[in-house]
């Protein structure tokens, strides 16, 4: 085992981590915003909105992210009408396509998590808030949102970790993330296992930190569920 090679490989992989993390962070935030919109449509009670939200979730959760990514990056770029339009400068960049595609996909999953969390808010709480004369906005801010958020956290943390793993797919649309650097080193040096193992270790540690962070947040937000100190 060549220690020098290990260090060099590891440093090169770490240098690609910022790209992986920025794709992750931007797509998760943008996806969260889209998901909020989709969830709002889903529970709005307006039939066409509801139908759209259902279809959105079904399409983005029912097809592989890889093919969605290719529709956006290779598919949209091949349409002459789109190449002539004002969004072309945005979509020409692989990074933007990656963020957009990952965001659209995670929005489908996040919308279902948000919906489940909203449904878990006990009806009595809503009735009590109404009885106190809260406006709809105040009721959402003070009662529904905090309770729903706590319900959503475990599933949300799983989705965040799943998104870190999904960012590896951007290596297939010419971006130099941790995954593609590992493949390039493997290709150049013909060392099979080491680059992939080191890349795996980086992903694993990132996921571990995110998971631990969400667990700490969950603990902090639900002091009333902890056992009483004896």
């Amino acid at each position: 085992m060549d220690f020098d090679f290990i260090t060099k490989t590891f440093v090169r992989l770490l240098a690609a981590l910022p790209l992986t993390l920025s794709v992750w962070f931007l797509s998760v935030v943008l996806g969260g915003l889209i998901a909020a919109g989709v969830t709002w449509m889903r529970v709005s009670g307006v039939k066409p909105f509801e139908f759209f939200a259902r279809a959105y979730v079904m399409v983005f959760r029912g097809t592989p992210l890889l093919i969605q990514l290719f529709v956006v990056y290779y598919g949209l770029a091949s349409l002459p009408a789109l190449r002539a339009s004002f969004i072309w400068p945005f979509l020409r960049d692989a990074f933007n396509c990656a963020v957009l595609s990952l965001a659209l996909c995670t929005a489908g999953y996040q919308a279902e998590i948000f919906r489940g969390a909203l449904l878990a808010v006990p009806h009595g709480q809503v009735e009590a808030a109404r009885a106190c004369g809260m406006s709809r906005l105040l009721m959402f801010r003070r009662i529904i949102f905090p309770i729903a958020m706590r319900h959503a956290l475990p599933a949300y943390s799983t989705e965040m970790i799943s998104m870190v793993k999904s960012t590896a797919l951007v290596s297939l649309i010419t971006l130099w993330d941790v995954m593609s650097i590992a493949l390039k080193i493997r290709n150049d040096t013909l060392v099979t296992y080491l680059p992939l193992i080191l890349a795996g270790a980086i992903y694993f540690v990132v996921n571990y930190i995110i998971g631990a962070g969400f667990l700490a947040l969950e603990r902090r937000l639900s002091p009333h569920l902890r056992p009483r100190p004896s």
Partner: protein
Amino acid sequence: MGDLAIFGFGQGGWGLALLQGAAMTLLVSACGLVIGSAIGGLVAWARLSGKLLAGGVGQAYAALFRGLPELLIVYFVYFGTSTLLTETAHALGHEGFVGVPSFAAGALAVGVISGAYQAEVFRAAYLAISRGELEAAVSVGMNRALLFRRIIAPQVLRFALPGLGNLWQVALKDSSLISVTGLTELMRISQVGAGSTHRPFAFYLGGAALYLVMTIATTRFFDVAEARATRGMRRAMG
């Protein structure tokens, strides 16, 4: 050629190729799910055994393969098994590179991933069996094999069905990653079609539509199976 004619079955149409790709996707995902069941069953058994070492290994397996990117696992299994096979062949006096068939490597990769999740499903299903039934079986003198066959297996399968249905969908979608090894499943055929007709938008959208159809149709199948498996049960809701 018209927009729809490229998906047709006539001269120059890609309809048949896409359907063959879809069939390959179903086949490799199904093999992956079965391999995953074997792995998942073993890992769940290790974790439930109460033995420190076996439990630790089971937990480590589940944590590891749920924390790594699926694409990385696909590459690792494909390159890893090929390198292993090549080195074994060299040791036996064979020259040159020996590749593992991409179908086998792909099914194994999907299985390795699915197994980590299935272990949790099986473990939860086992824990959902009421203690009283296990005690009753022991008290009427069933040996371990009979206890497993008559009491544990039927109920674990029943409780695990909803989770397995979800994991089937995941396996179906993960199988698209096998396209990087060159297996001509639906994703790969869509790429080939996109490349040779210069119509990536139509082909990737068409491929996505086929995936959606497969997901919806097979989910119906699992719903029916679940309704059948639980027809004798009373439930709290629904």
